């Protein structure tokens, strides 16, 4: 047992962190700077990070869940307003189905509750949400067939921003035409379980990053803002809020590291359990940490121009993705032989 990052993984973390630090938004106003966003997007495209789950010759992914998690964490920490989790999940689906990689950026359509991949009914997707759509004009869905669930692709409308100001979604309303993906084989139940584990683990890594960024933002503010003739960060009441937030983010990091490793190394049901443990922990922690960042900023924290709510919003979307706190807890209990979903509502 040795769960340290390899030198290559550390280098990946450093280059992702550097890139986001240079080109990510450092103020709310910068979210409306298309030139900066385009530069960040071009740099991420050039890095190939969205293709980490592309198949190699043996149909294994080019990189493990750990590398995907490393990138996701740094993108979250820097509030990167470009797509990553959506295209990564689409790439993973194509690999599982043996379909050729997409020439353009594409994402996935989830059910309205964001719990699973949307399904085609009578040639159309009646409703759903395409997530993380920045730069994508198409998205993948599941099309049931006589020999199992196949992948299909559909065109997307223009982005509506929604909850997360850094990663827009598009509502799907049953109008779009769905095209089957060929050549490809059906995706199995095990494939979808592992895919869900990957999505949860990446969402957790994003949460670990947003927590880190929110604590950094609030700590910097607390060191500068003065009241009663002293920086507010010198008061224990404020220090303890920030200390708790930091400790939560560290627990989340440990659970997430395992979840990203488990994606490729454990049986599908165990990989999903590792992801559910991490998601329950991260989602609960991230809401508290986001709220703490707002509280430490006081009145300023409740204004649109403060980045604290951008972190909280991003965390709320990642928390919902493929299973929120309640769903994750239910999965953890079920994996240990307890209950059905009804007992926990």
């Amino acid at each position: 047992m040795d769960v340290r990052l390899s030198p290559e993984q550390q280098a990946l973390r450093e280059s992702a962190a550097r890139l986001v630090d240079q080109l990510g938004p450092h103020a709310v106003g910068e979210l409306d700077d298309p030139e900066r966003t385009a530069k960040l997007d071009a740099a991420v495209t050039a890095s190939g990070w969205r293709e980490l789950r592309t198949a190699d010759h043996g149909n294994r992914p080019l990189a493990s869940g750990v590398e995907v998690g490393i990138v996701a964490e740094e993108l979250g920490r820097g509030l990167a307003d470009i797509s990553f989790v959506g295209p990564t999940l689409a790439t993973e689906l194509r690999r599982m189905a043996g379909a050729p990689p997409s020439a353009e950026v594409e994402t996935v359509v989830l059910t309205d509750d964001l719990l699973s991949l949307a399904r085609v009914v009578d040639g159309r997707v009646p409703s759903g949400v395409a997530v993380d759509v920045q730069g994508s004009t198409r998205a993948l869905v599941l099309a049931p067939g006589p020999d199992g669930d196949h992948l299909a692709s559909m065109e997307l409308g223009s982005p509506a921003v929604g909850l997360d100001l850094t990663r827009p979604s598009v509502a799907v309303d049953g109008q779009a035409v769905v095209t089957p993906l060929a050549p490809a084989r059906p995706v199995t139940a095990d494939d979808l379980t592992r895919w869900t584990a990957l999505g949860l683990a990446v969402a957790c890594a994003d949460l670990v990053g947003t927590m880190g960024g929110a604590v950094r933002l609030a700590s910097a503010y607390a060191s500068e803002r003065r009241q009663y003739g002293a920086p507010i960060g010198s008061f224990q009441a404020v220090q303890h809020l920030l200390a708790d937030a930091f400790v939560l983010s560290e627990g989340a990091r440990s659970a997430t590291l395992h979840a990203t490793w488990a994606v490729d190394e454990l049986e599908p049901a165990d990989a999903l359990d590792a992801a559910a443990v991490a998601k329950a922990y991260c989602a609960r922690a991230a809401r508290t940490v986001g709220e703490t960042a707002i509280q430490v900023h006081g009145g300023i924290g409740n204004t649109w121009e403060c980045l604290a709510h951008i972190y909280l919003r991003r965390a709320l979307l990642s928390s919902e993705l493929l299973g929120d706190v309640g769903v994750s807890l239910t999965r953890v209990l079920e994996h240990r032989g307890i209950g059905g979903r009804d007992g926990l509502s």
Partner: protein
Amino acid sequence: MDFRDSAPEAGFRIRLREWLATHNPGLPTSSTDDEYWAGMAAWHRSLYDAGFFGMSWPTSIGGQARSTVYEVIVDEELAAAGAPPRPSLGYLVQGILEHGDDEIQQRFLPGIVNGRDRWCQGFSEPDAGSDLASLRTRADRDGDDFVITGHKVWTSYSDEAEWCLLLARTDHEVAKHRGISAFAVPMGQPGIEQRPLRMINGVTKEFGEVLFDGARVPAANMIGAPGEGWSLAMTVVSHEREPGELGYVARYRKVVNDLTRRVVGDPGRFRPDQVRDLGWAMVEVEMLGLHVRRRLSDRLDGIAHGPQGSVDKLLMTWTEQAVGHASLGIGGIAAGGGDETSLNTYLYSRAQSVMGGTSQIQRNLVARRILDLPAS
């Protein structure tokens, strides 16, 4: 990165598992029962004799000089078998290893590691709790001895111990942190009065007060240089804060496994909120186990102990208290048909945010030394 056992680790795990199948003493859940503490010394020797204790300590003191990963394996297998956790002595060993000279180490450490000698820790005093450096117990030179006068409290297992790792003031002229020295004091002598304290869960073996009035300790029993006591204390408490060192994950896992079996066996008996508390306890315990693996792996680089120990201590505390709440929910209140063990497990969990440095002290350390927030 690999969370799995290497081949030697897997072989060790299997040997331990087979041994546990016939050697599990089946003591009651820890810290809720005096019977547990009474059986702990025999359990320590049994583990040591079979080669499952002191895994990562130097061979010169009876350890096996293996990687700390083996401690994790021991903890996991003890929990899986429902066996008692290993005795928590790492902080004591580490303090003497880092501050005692070779002679001191050879005199005292083998007996601690193999379970022959039992030790207690004389740090806190009635007026020196969180502010430990203001302690007033004094050690005054008298020929080849020091004479000890003072009052120690929260001294775990003091009535069972043959030795006490004692902090006492030897220099009253210097700043309070600089005037403290550490000693190995023999407990079986006149001038030492034991007053066991009863904890809120009824246990009387764990907690005590010790009054020193003219007890003697040879000057040769000083650990480290005169005035090095504070630095030794900081080594000890930083180890005391690390869940990997303490093996507590095994204890938490055992409780969660017991509670899970009860719910699986009679699912209709429990309310959704009680089951939900159990779910959180599962999540916290899994997280803590993974956190320990991460921190022990970091140590393979030789990363020194620092304020990160306060992060570990807070995570461990939140985990223990989540397990306590699950225990209260599933085990129930004793007066309402629940069992006393579950109630006592809950009550004992309240101590975790106090012992080894309160949660408030840990937060101060995280804020100042990790987040670099300004001094007050």
